[in-house]
């Protein structure tokens, strides 16, 4: 039921997007009433998206026939934003596709071309100046977070590389263990010999 609830929320968000972006409706007009099923391999479940000409309908756990069915891991899905990489992904076995390739490309192309003016939509609720300010701050925060993430990643990589230089190789560890065992054995032998000498 939680998945159904999540699907309902995503469907509402998509329909809101459809209201705000009339171009999306135009881009998908050719594929209306056709169902695109997406199987997410990691979750072993299939979602189906249908554009009816007025609204999107999104269903989970879909077991019916679809005009196009794609199957991919979650990590591959963002790559589908670019319709031209689909055939490449199929060749790499990252994507299975049954049915009409053009349907998948139409959805992929329509969403990739979306250029949402968030500030414009937000200005209807809070006014032009605050919307622009919030949007700019958002962009700055995004850029800052992106820079921080890159810096963190670089630093972490450098640290790991430095650590690699001083870290011992597994063979060295093995050799060290063998030496330790030999010393322990010698110490035990020596202890035994001292005891024998003392008992004489």
């Amino acid at each position, binding site marked *: *039921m939680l998945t*159904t*609830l999540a*699907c*309902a929320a995503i469907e509402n968000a998509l329909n809101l997007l459809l209201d705000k972006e009339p171009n999306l409706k135009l881009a998908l007009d050719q594929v*209306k*009433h056709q*169902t695109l099923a997406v199987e997410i391999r990691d979750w072993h479940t299939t979602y*189906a998206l*249908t554009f*009816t*000409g*007025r*609204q999107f*309908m999104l*269903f*989970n*756990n*879909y*077991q*019916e*026939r679809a005009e196009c069915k794609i199957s991919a891991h979650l990590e591959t899905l963002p790559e589908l934003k670019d319709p031209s990489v689909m055939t490449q992904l199929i060749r790499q076995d990252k994507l299975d596709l049954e049915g009409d390739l053009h349907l998948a490309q139409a959805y992929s192309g329509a969403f990739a071309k979306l250029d949402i003016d968030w500030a414009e939509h937000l200005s209807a609720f809070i006014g032009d100046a605050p919307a622009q300010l919030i949007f700019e701050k958002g962009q700055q925060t995004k850029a800052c977070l992106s820079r921080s993430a890159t810096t963190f990643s670089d630093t972490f990589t450098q640290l790991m590389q430095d650590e690699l230089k001083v870290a011992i190789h597994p063979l060295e560890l093995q050799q060290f263990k063998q030496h330790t065992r030999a010393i322990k054995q010698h110490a035990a032998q020596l202890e035994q010999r001292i005891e024998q000498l003392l008992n004489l």
Partner: protein
Amino acid sequence: MKESQHNTTDFGYKTVDREAKASMVADVFHSVAAKYDIMNDLMSFGIHRLWKRQAIACAGVRKGHRVLDLAGGTGDLTAKFSQLVGDTGQVILGDINDSMLKVGRDKLRDLGLVSNIEYVQMNAEALPFPDNSVDVITIAFGLRNVTDKDAALRSMYRILKPGGRLLVLEFSKTDNEALSKLYDFYSFNILPNMGKLVANDSESYRYLAESIRMHPDQETLKGMMENAGFEQATYQNMTGGIVALHRGFKY
């Protein structure tokens, strides 16, 4: 004695004449029609929308299909089916109760859904359609109110096209004891009071709770569908079995 049993049926926990049940059920729905949607949301905490979504997902409705939304009430399923079948398809919103049909028609017209929906007042036991004329039939939260459920299922089977399917979304039986006790308390103590507060009608909502308890359980309904001729009859429980979605095909 046998004849007397044959001429009576249940109306909630009461036993009434078979002829009287339809009008008694009609009275219940005349009474609740105006507040039906808001009460559904309140009573189920909005979960009825998720149950109906699941039914729509399993209906396999496509462009050009002819769909019968039986006991369709205020048209929740019809609204979605109307868009899925497109201009070349048709959705028939059928209900025995004209008050519910009127509320459904007003609601769907307000949504701008007019071109492919037909409104027909009908009795599920004798559907006014030719044999093999409908692709998909759904009956959501309606079968338990039908006097002769077997006759209704046979009638649905008759009008379905070969390859067509029936979906029955209905309250059912939960096998979780704790949930069952909680559900009983909610149904018989909170629900009628909620009905009194919102719709000024506690009796109708007491009937709702009683009729749910009198409705056949999952396996029995599955058997009834098979007896009516449906093949591959299956069901899936939702919300711990409080609601079950039965599906059967005609080949």
